[in-house]
């Protein structure tokens, strides 16, 4: 049985080879090979308040070899062959590159022509299928994504990266000037240390706002870490924040818009992971992250500009509908532990309002440090969830 959590590449290779061996043995015995994977969906997600993230339930998806699935299975084994070679040689590729590698190999060998991919989504689907069966991350198969977000600013954080050749690279973020440090590919390979006691870590939904806070001197005035999430957190942002939680003893706060989308798609993913990545949430969620705002009470307290959810905007209406659905079906929001967060969703549904994080700039329009002051005040007064 495959265990969840980061695997070393030796074990990935072993699992993959074992998988091939099982299929071949089944075939020699005239048995239909059955590939089993964890069902990655919300109806198979369990939220444990103790663990703090979404974990998989008992549901499995089974792919059995038959006339309909023989093409998919043949393609999967073909792509697996390429990925195993990459693991052996240490080569890495993006999904796009792998698509062209497949095309090249298929062109060279006419026997393999039936496996040809029409476009990239076809080969992407096979890579995702392999990740589900082996229960690993694509990065563990040396298939990297060009992940965005995670620009990090701090005057007291030191990152040590172990390079593929075993050498160590040390990055002192205080020496980077105004440039941020951006974690890429596998933040799990990074070790973090603090040069002095860090007061807090602030993850800002808008990369622009994070940059404004830093440019106005927040990291100079406070011993803190500022991270720009750049919307829905990518795998690298999620793993990076998890790394900060684990390796630097620091409270982490998330600051973003007050709307259903932010709460559900951005904050929940950062804090407890997502249903799609259910087997990887242990490494891709930071359960200790707190929601600093914008809170419903902030709207009243600071008299923030807010907008009515437009009934003629399908995406905004859909978001509210999804919020209602989350209250009924999402184990994270259903959990008693996250009741205060669920209450925000209820408030949003009831009031049909949304308020952007930048609205704080309206509080004292003449003071460029107004947002910083409010955030520090909120952190110190415990105005977060």
């Amino acid at each position, binding site marked *: 049985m495959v265990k969840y959590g980061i695997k070393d590449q030796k074990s990935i290779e072993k699992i993959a080879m074992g998988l091939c061996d099982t299929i*071949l043995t089944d*075939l020699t015995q005239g048995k*239909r090979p059955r590939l089993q994977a964890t069902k990655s969906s919300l109806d198979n997600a369990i939220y444990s308040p103790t663990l703090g993230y979404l974990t998989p339930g008992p549901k499995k998806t089974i792919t059995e070899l038959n006339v309909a699935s023989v*093409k998919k299975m043949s393609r999967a084994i073909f792509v*697996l062959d390429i990925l195993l070679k990459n693991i052996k040689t240490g080569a890495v590729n993006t999904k796009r590159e792998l698509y062209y590698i497949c095309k090249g190999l298929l062109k060279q060998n006419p026997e393999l022509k039936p496996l040809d991919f029409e476009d990239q989504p076809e080969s992407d689907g096979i890579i995702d299928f392999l990740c589900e069966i082996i229960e690993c991350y694509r990065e563990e198969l040396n298939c990297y994504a060009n992940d965005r977000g995670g620009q990090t600013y701090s005057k007291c954080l030191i990152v040590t990266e172990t390079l593929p050749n075993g050498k160590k690279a040390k990055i002192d973020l205080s020496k980077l000037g105004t440039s941020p440090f951006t974690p890429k590919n596998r933040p799990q390979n990074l070790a973090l240390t603090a040069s002095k006691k860090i007061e807090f870590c602030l993850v800002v939904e808008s990369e622009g706002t994070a940059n404004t806070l830093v440019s106005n001197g927040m990291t100079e005035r406070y011993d803190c870490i500022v991270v720009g999430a750049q919307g829905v957190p990518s795998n690298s942002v999620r793993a990076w924040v998890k790394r900060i939680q684990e390796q630097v003893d620091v409270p982490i706060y998330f600051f973003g818009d007050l709307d259903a989308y932010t709460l559900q798609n951005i904050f929940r993913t950062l804090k407890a992971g997502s249903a799609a990545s259910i087997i990887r949430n242990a490494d891709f969620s930071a359960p200790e992250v707190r929601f600093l705002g914008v809170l419903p009470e902030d709207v009243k307290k600071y008299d923030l500009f807010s907008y009515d959810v437009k009934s003629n905007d399908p995406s905004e209406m859909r978001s509210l509908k999804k919020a209602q659905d989350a209250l009924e079906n999402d184990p994270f929001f259903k959990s008693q532990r996250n009741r205060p967060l669920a209450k925000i969703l209820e408030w949003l549904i009831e009031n049909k309002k949304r308020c952007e994080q930048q609205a704080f700039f309206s509080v004292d329009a003449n003071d460029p440090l107004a947002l910083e002051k409010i955030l520090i005040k909120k952190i110190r007064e415990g105005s977060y969830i």
Partner: protein
Amino acid sequence: MTKNKANEKIVANSTAEYFAKNLQQVGFSSPIKAVLTTVKEAMDNALDACEEHGILPNIRVDIKKLGLGSLKNTDRISIKVLDNGPGIEEKYVPMVFGQYLASSKFGQGRPSRGQQGIGISAATTWALQTSAIGAKVTTKRENERKALRCVVVTDLKKNEGILKDKEKINWENPHGTEVEFIIDGKIQMNGEGGLLTYLRGTILLNPHMTLTYHLTEMEPVTVERVIDEVPEIPKATPPHPHTMKLGEFLSYARLFSSHKNAEWLCKGFSRVSPNIAATLFKNSGLPKTLLDKKVNTLTSDQLKKLFQTIQDSEFQAPSTKSVMSLGEKALSLSVMRLGKVDYFSVVTRKPAICDFKPVQVEVAIARLFEKKSDGEDSSVQILRFANRVPLQFDKASCAIVKSISSVNWKSYSIKQTKGNLPSGPYIIAVSVVSPFLKFKNASKETIDATDELVTEIRKALMKAGQSLSRHIKKEAKTQELENKIKHIEKFGPVLVNTLCRILGASEAKKKKAEEGIEKILGRDNLKTRQQLDEVEERLNVHLASRKDQFDSFIKEDEELQARQEALLRAEEEILGTRYNDDETSSKKEFSRKKKSSKKNKSRL
């Protein structure tokens, strides 16, 4: 009104003058239509003449381009139609080809092709207007030694045909008529106004016809008849009691004013026997004694009561004899002449009343071989027929097209976007026959789409679709099986080879795995093969039942005729010998039926 205008004379124009000025109303609205309408009118006349005289038609159509036409963008075209009909007596030749509204079939309550006697005279007028040459006619009757050759022109003022250049000639044909029109027009072969489309339709609906056509530079083509039997000409039957509105009913009563009420009801309407007439009187609260009184003794109120009782009463469906049909067997044989037909289904509905008129609908759907690959996405080819005459223009508002579009063809595995015509390499032929068909225009190109008629056509189409879907399902299953086999052949070895390469497996293990995958995936095919067998069996059962049905048609026909004969005898006994003319015609009818029944037996 000014004084001058008030003094202007009101003049009555002749019918011929009216049509000569409005030829577009009778199918001569464009050069393409002119050619098609001329061919159509000549062929309709030829077919009607042959059928009425019990002759199996041999028709030859020759169309030649003679040069440029006098009208802009037209050609000078010769259209010649030769038949082996009975020939025309000399005195009738100018009436047939040159006089408007001279017809032997007008208002007879029979679904003959021609009705009013306008079409062929209009063709003569068009020829005169565009080439200044009338209709060149050659005709010979069986007992004549020499044929009459002449040119017919129309005196538009008097609406009279005039014979010119008359001569007696030796003619190789024992009897028949040949007519040639030299007109300005444009030849189109395929599509809505295409000659081949028209001929294809005429061939389908006339299985008893042998047709030779020689169109411009094309090689002459002969399509042989598939049945050796002249269709029974429908007897002119009186109207069904449900076909009249109150006003019509009262006027109709006046026509029979000197007849006794019982006679009027029994002879003036179909499906009314003396017993039924008595019941109608009883239910109307009219004294029985009135039955033997004359119609003019009934008061207006009594007639209205009688009319209402008729509306509330149920009568036997209109006679099949008043709305002739080809029958499923003849249609099946004829469908095969449309080209390389993969498979087909035919449906002949029982006659029904639509909008107070007896109507019979027949449908043939054929899937063609030659268009199988390239015709998947184009609309099906539609052949529309009204009283066995192909309709080619203004299809959008026609009852037939509306009916076809309203059927959900997807449920019969035929492609269709909602509310549109289905697509694929199919021919859908729909024939509507009725002595009183309602057209939308004088050129008889569009059948009026009333709800009842559309429903009736839909029913026939749906039945034909159900029958056809059995073939299509079998085809789909065969295709599925082929695809699965191909799929396994493609991917099985690739899967095994890649696995063996990754694991470095031995050749023996590889061979064993190859055998294993073949076995596993072969099991899937077995399931599809079983499904195919089931579908095939269902189709065979269906085809066998259709064969039995064809065989039983003849038997049913004989039984029906015997029943009708008995019924008529009973009527004659009751009504005495007052209707001698009808009796004679009935006897003639019986003898013809007997003859046809014998032919049916020999055919089997």
